């Protein structure tokens, strides 16, 4: 996602002395670095002489759960949390999380910065048939950019990868964030140097510059024109509706009714009938995982799936 660098003024710059607290909401998924980004920001604001309040929820962080952090700064800050519709900047490290927190963004003047990275949560994969549609958010970059005036969607990981360090993706986002807040670049850099491991300082500062440059050179109009609908972040299902995806063939004469397949089937689609022979009860739930086939000691089950994937 690169555009010709056209120097524009950083959008939505708050004045250095602000009458009301300035609100930055940072959201993402466990392990992405939401907390690190908010710590950098909070320290920076403090060094700039503001009162800062930060609150975060990082409950199931290690398990890929949602993580968010509110950072508020100003002359005086009372509440540590940002009310709905009052975030001046919404920084999303993951696309779906960004969509989820959209109502918190201040209408018209709020700035939305999002990494286009997709992390599909297990909960969105409830249809477990291979290739099935996930429950991931449907909004495309285009829809969001059309509706939110100050919106930036960048591939931070891609930018970081070009620098050779994927882990610096957060610093790229900090660079983009720096264009939405009026703090001197040097101040940002000195705080970042304090937070990253010493041996990675150099590359992190490069990543910061890259992110900042990207955001400064971002031209919404031409970007919008370039977006094709194919850039949808939502993956369409590859399974035709009603396809006979997998078929479980049961050789009744060989089944001894040991119950292993019934108890091991993750989708609970097999039952034991009154003759103590296994029977397929809910074929539409079967995902073709082959668990029953593998564990049947009597070779009474064969699972036919259209695509043979050798293990």
């Amino acid at each position, binding site marked *: 996602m690169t555009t010709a660098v056209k120097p524009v003024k950083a959008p939505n710059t708050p004045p250095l002395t602000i009458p009301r607290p300035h609100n930055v909401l940072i959201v993402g998924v466990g392990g992405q670095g939401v907390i690190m980004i908010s710590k950098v920001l909070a320290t920076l604001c403090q060094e700039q002489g503001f009162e800062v309040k930060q609150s975060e929820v990082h409950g199931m962080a290690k398990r890929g759960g949602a993580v968010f952090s509110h950072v508020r700064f100003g002359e005086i800050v009372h509440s540590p949390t940002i009310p709905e519709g009052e975030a001046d900047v919404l920084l999303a490290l993951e696309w779906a999380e960004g969509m989820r927190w959209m109502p918190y963004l201040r209408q018209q003047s709020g700035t939305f910065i999002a990494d286009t990275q997709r992390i599909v949560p297990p909960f969105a994969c409830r249809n477990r048939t291979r290739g099935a549609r996930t429950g991931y958010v449907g909004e495309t970059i285009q829809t969001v950019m059309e509706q939110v005036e100050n919106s930036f969607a960048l591939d931070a990981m891609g930018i970081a990868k070009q620098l050779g360090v994927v882990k610096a993706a957060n610093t790229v986002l900090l660079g983009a964030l720096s264009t939405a807040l009026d703090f001197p670049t040097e101040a940002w850099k000195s705080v970042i140097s304090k937070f990253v491991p010493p041996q990675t300082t150099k590359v992190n500062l490069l990543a910061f510059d890259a992110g900042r440059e990207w955001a400064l050179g971002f031209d919404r109009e031409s970007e919008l024109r370039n977006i094709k609908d194919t850039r949808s972040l939502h993956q369409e299902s590859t399974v035709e509706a009603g396809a006979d995806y997998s078929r479980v063939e049961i050789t009744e*004469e*060989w*089944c*001894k*009714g*040991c*119950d*292993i397949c*019934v*108890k*091991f089937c993750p989708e609970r689609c097999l039952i034991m009938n009154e003759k103590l022979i296994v029977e397929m009860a809910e074929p539409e739930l079967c995902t073709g995982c082959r668990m029953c086939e*593998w*564990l*049947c*000691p*009597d*070779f*009474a089950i*064969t699972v036919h799936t259209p695509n*043979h994937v*050798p*293990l």
Partner: protein
Amino acid sequence: MLDQAKTPFEIRDYIRQQLFPHFMCPGCGHGIALRALLWAIHDLGIAKDDLAIVSGIGCSGRIGAYIDANTFHTTHGRPLAFATGLKLARPDLHVIVITGDGDCLAIGGNHLIHACRRNLDITCLMLNNEIYGMTGGQVSPTTSSDRYTTTTPEGNYEPVFDACKLAQGAGAGFVGREMTLQTPSLKKLIQQGIAHPGFSFLEVISDCTEIYGRKNDLGESAEMVLSQKADFRSASYGMIADEVFQPRNVKTGVLYKDDRPEYAQAYRQKIASRAKK
């Protein structure tokens, strides 16, 4: 010959279908082990004519008969002895021995240690179900402590044999252990074992549901299979997992591997160099 097969695995191509359903009890783990073996053979692309299956006596010994290949059903404890002769005479065959814990460790224990010592290119699959099932449920060298069998009415007091350590100590070139619960991993282990040039000793954790399971109240077939997970853990999990989760500290996966010279080949070279003199 050892190319990865591209066609899907159809178990019916490898079994003598006229003998089915097989004689094993409902839920017996040996059936799963047999599937893994045939699957590995298929994936290695071994032709059925190049395969020789040698089995001893016991439930494990019987499963050889269901394989549609060259099969030998030998005397109790002696499959390794038969296999040694077979491999020396026909080094072109893939010789696979199917044996049980009693067959291999008690009655055929002596044959096992010498087969390991010679490091002949044989794959030995020891199906460990902790009991002599076919003869009525007597205690075997791998029966866990305090378990009831017909010969230990007060529970078993004898210490348990660690067959993998024994094989490694005796000189086997490849030693591994896997449970039937992890069928794909078991298949992979068997594949590695067959491909290894040297003696491969593979312990397969299996279940005897009807005799051992019932006498010891270990639950139904599915519970017994699932309980393998509590007792065994992949060697790659490392120490911390062992201490926290693993009551019996028994590892699975490839446990030992070395490239000692293979006996049949070394023997032939020796004879050839003698003949030249």
